[in-house]
């Protein structure tokens, strides 16, 4: 598989949120304000990519060599937690306004299953380092793309005439369902 195909597959066809069901807590939790969503999307792209940069060599050079691959989940979660802390420090240093907007959600990226999910998927399927990194980048981009689109729709739903029982989360789920349906139609492009 060439890298472009992997990128498009990870970003759109097998979208991490709508098709793989990863990172849903933040997907429904944060998607109410456009500004925080863009920040969240960027932070997730960075964290997913960096965690793939570290976890792939960590797995093959350390865990496989020492024959302790069974602790992969524990090792990865530690790497991710450290990375999130680092990202938090960097954002705090360079953009106070972004830090204020993301405040609560940044630590949540550590328990965002998208990050751990991508790291674990990367080692579950045999592939080269370049392929793994492309997959991680595509997943991050796909996450950001979907959560931003979804937020745009949800903001319009706020002022729409939604049945009383469907207000809030129920209609959000149905919206996500229709989005997933649309994305299923793209399955043939690669």
């Amino acid at each position, binding site marked *: 598989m060439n890298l472009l195909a992997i990128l498009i597959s990870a970003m759109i066809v097998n979208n991490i949120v709508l098709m793989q069901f990863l990172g849903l807590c933040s997907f429904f939790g944060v998607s109410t304000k456009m500004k925080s969503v863009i920040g969240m999307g960027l932070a997730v792209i960075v964290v997913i990519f960096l965690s793939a940069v570290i976890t792939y060599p960590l797995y093959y050079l350390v865990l496989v060599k020492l024959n302790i691959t069974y602790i992969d989940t524990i090792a990865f979660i530690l790497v991710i937690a450290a990375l999130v802390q680092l990202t938090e420090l960097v954002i705090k240093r360079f953009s106070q306004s972004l830090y204020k907007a993301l405040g609560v959600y940044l630590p949540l990226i550590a328990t965002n299953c998208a990050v751990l999910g991508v790291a674990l998927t990367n080692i579950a399927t045999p592939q080269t380092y370049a392929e793994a990194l492309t997959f991680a980048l595509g997943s991050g981009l796909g996450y950001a793309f979907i959560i931003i689109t979804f937020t745009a729709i949800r903001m319009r739903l706020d002022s729409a005439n939604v049945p009383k*029982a469907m207000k809030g989360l129920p209609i959000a789920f*149905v919206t996500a369902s229709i989005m997933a349906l649309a994305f299923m139609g793209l399955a043939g492009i690669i």
Partner: protein
Amino acid sequence: MTEVKKVPVKKAPVVETEPTLWEIFTKGILKENGIFVMVLGLCPSLAVTSTFEGAFGMGILVILVLTMTNASVSLIRKVVPDTVRIPVYVIIIATEVTIMKMLVDAFAPALAQELGVFIALITVNCVVFGRAESFASKNTVLKSTLDGIGVGIGFGLSLILIGFFREFLGTGTIVLGKTLPLGFEATLFSGLGLSPYAFRVLVQPPGAFLVIGLILAVITVIRQKKGAKKA
């Protein structure tokens, strides 16, 4: 996310009135249901519920993991300094999930195949982490264990409900014994002849969102009815 933010506010009066052990056990099943009330732990609830059995297996795993993590977090709650408690919880949870994953690999390989990466992802299930942080770190071992079992059962039952609707309406039948090591195989409801009329899309990703959205809407209606009666 409004639901999630409300939780600590709601809990304050509960702690003041010293709930009985039975109340601690039952509140996790309905009143503080992980999926439908707090809307936490969504990843597994959508990903593994395409079949009834997958949902059932995941439910059992979450009950076991939650009970273990709640008990162990509660055991060490006085030893661990406040500043490093979150990394410690993460390691405890990850270790216990790894143990659980090994057991599933050994005793139910078909289930391990079906759930795939989502067994390891119990580690980052917000429900597990949320209970450790908001309940087990403040309560005795007995209470925490009961809370873990209760919340786990509530979570498992929600998964089973979603899984049942998705497989039954999506394929017209419920297959048993294929992924769980039950020792027998059976296909329920095959005599009804519903298969040609099944909504296949419910088994696929969009169906997961749709079913949860509709169940949430039904719950909202029930709540509004209840609220109207009280007022």
